[in-house]
């Protein structure tokens, strides 16, 4: 992988990180309301996977999906406007933080019902297979979703019918406040996929190189075999589950230990040590990120509110 590609990957992780930090600030200022789930710490996963995706590829994600939307190409300004509840938002202000949707980017949004998007992505992939329209279908979900029946049903059918889906489990070890070891009898998550005869790999989700390598392997396999593939990304969220979470269920030492494995610092340091990037270049990237995000925030603040008369629009096809 050449220097410029790696720089882009670093830049994308920085964009996600900064957007999330600003979201947290805007939340405390009450500019963003409702639930807000931040992706800080997990950036390497979405950044690495999305690196291989093309505009026509389908993505479904969870309620922790700001970064996924951004990396799939949804402009930061439309993401921010959505969180501000404005018509300029990618979902017209009707979805908010948990439901960023953008059909032009084939981003089918954040599902806030855990695991609901998994069978739906299998359906998207089935349609792509039948219509032969050269789209990949990728689903992101947390390890908590693997306790849901929908996960198991979808996995079985994807394997049974050879539906080419990439299942990306972002295992951040906690389903809200419940540790994986307290909610699952089988802690090796790849076994759950293998049990359905779905090829599976576990990935260090804090290491962008490994994310890239294993995702590439998975996508090549899907392309070649026309079958599904399961990736478990071991990762960690540095922030609480949501802005309401007092984070009482995790030892502070554990959080500190994982923060030392920050995926952004890891890549920065690696690139610096290999002299693949300079501090000046990193500063330049920082400025670009800041500029993009500040522009997004001012765009969102100036956004318009949908007239209440339009409340009942878009319920059915002909409600224009």
């Amino acid at each position: 992988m050449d220097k410029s590609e790696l720089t882009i990957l670093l830049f994308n992780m920085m964009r996600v990180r900064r957007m999330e930090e600003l979201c947290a600030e805007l939340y405390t200022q009450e500019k963003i309301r409702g639930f807000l789930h931040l992706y800080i710490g997990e950036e390497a996963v979405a950044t690495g996977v999305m690196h291989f995706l093309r505009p026509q590829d389908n993505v479904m994600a969870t309620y922790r999906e700001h970064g996924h939307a951004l990396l799939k190409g949804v402009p930061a300004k439309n993401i921010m406007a959505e969180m501000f509840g404005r018509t300029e938002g990618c979902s017209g202000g009707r979805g908010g933080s948990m439901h960023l949707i953008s059909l032009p980017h084939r981003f089918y949004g954040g599902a806030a019902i855990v695991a609901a998007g998994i069978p739906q992505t299998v359906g998207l992939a089935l349609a792509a297979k039948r219509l032969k329209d050269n789209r990949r279908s990728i689903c992101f979900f947390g390890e908590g979703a693997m306790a849901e029946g929908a996960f198991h049903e979808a996995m079985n059918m994807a394997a049974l019918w050879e539906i080419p889906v990439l299942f990306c489990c972002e295992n951040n070890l906690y389903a809200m406040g419940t540790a994986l070891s307290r909610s699952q009898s089988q802690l090796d998550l790849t076994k759950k996929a293998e049990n359905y005869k779905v090829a599976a790999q576990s990935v260090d989700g804090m290491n962008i190189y490994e994310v890239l390598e294993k995702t590439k392997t998975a996508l090549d396999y899907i392309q070649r075999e026309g079958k599904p593939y399961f990736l478990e990304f071991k990762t960690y969220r540095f922030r609480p589950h949501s802005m309401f979470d007092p984070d009482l269920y995790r030892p502070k030492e554990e959080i500190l230990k994982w923060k030392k494995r920050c995926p952004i610092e890891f890549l920065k340091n690696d690139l610096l040590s290999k002299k693949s990037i300079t501090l000046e270049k990193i500063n330049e990237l920082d400025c670009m990120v800041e500029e993009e995000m500040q522009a997004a925030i001012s765009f969102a603040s100036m956004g318009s509110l949908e007239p209440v008369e339009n409340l009942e629009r878009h319920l059915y096809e002909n409600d224009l």
Partner: protein
Amino acid sequence: MKMTYREALREGLTHALEKNPNVFLIGEDVGAYGGTYAVTKDFLQIYGPERIMDAPLSEVGFVGIGIGAALGGMKPIVEIMTVNFSLLALDQLINSAAIFRHMSAGQLSVPLVVRMTTGGGRQLAAQHSNSFEGWLAHIPGLKILVPASVEDARSFLTFALKGNDPVLIFEHALLLNRSEEVSSEPITISPFKALIRKEGPRLSLITYGGMLPRCLEAAMDCQELGLDIEVIDLRCLRPLDDRTIFQSIKKTHRVLIVDEGWRSGSFSAEISARIMENCFYDLDAPVARLCRKEVPIPYARHLEEAAIPQMKEIKAKIQEMLK
């Protein structure tokens, strides 16, 4: 020509499969078994396994796959064996199919058709005799079709597939073997309009689905007694054509609602409320209702019959109201 409700459903499906290559069927036992109610017999041999997909017992999974396939440009017809099992898939229907268009400000369409058998009356006991179509009509974003006639059983699917919204079609198990005279070509009266199945000046009997034949029978019996009533077949519970109801009441001034669902918080309650809001001064008597008794449906035949409105009970109620 004569046709059964089952044959009509089959003809509707055949038409859909022949007309649009993106239509496919998915559900439990739709293929090799030929459909639990033999509606899709031989379809697997005719259309192949890509279009007639036998699904494992995974309601939330295959309804979710249907939603995804609809989002992805296909026209899936999902069969949930009976309405009772639809409860396992309610999350997909309500939290996804019904909301995607609105929540995405019109970007996403879910052109999904879900067929399911509904209703009691066959001694199948409490877990196989539910009637939830009125309950599902509570959900904005869904369309709820309840074909009661053979003609409607034949044509509703075509209408459902024409649009790009999720449509649930409830096929009543007791109607499957009913045979009725139909035209050689399907009649295309929009399903979103209630139809007056029998005209009459004395009372408006409002019903739908599996209750229609027994209501019509009761009305014909009453006719012989000189009690000439009107019978309205709702055909679609959401959107509800309440104008037809109101116009009828302006003529008859009396209303009886016959609903196979339970009474409390029911679809009959919704109709009654709309009548109160719109026709209060047209009424000569309180709105009356005959509903399922508020118990789980028992197995024993006499108990089941007592729990679901029967022809004789409907007839007696009409006579009592017109005394």
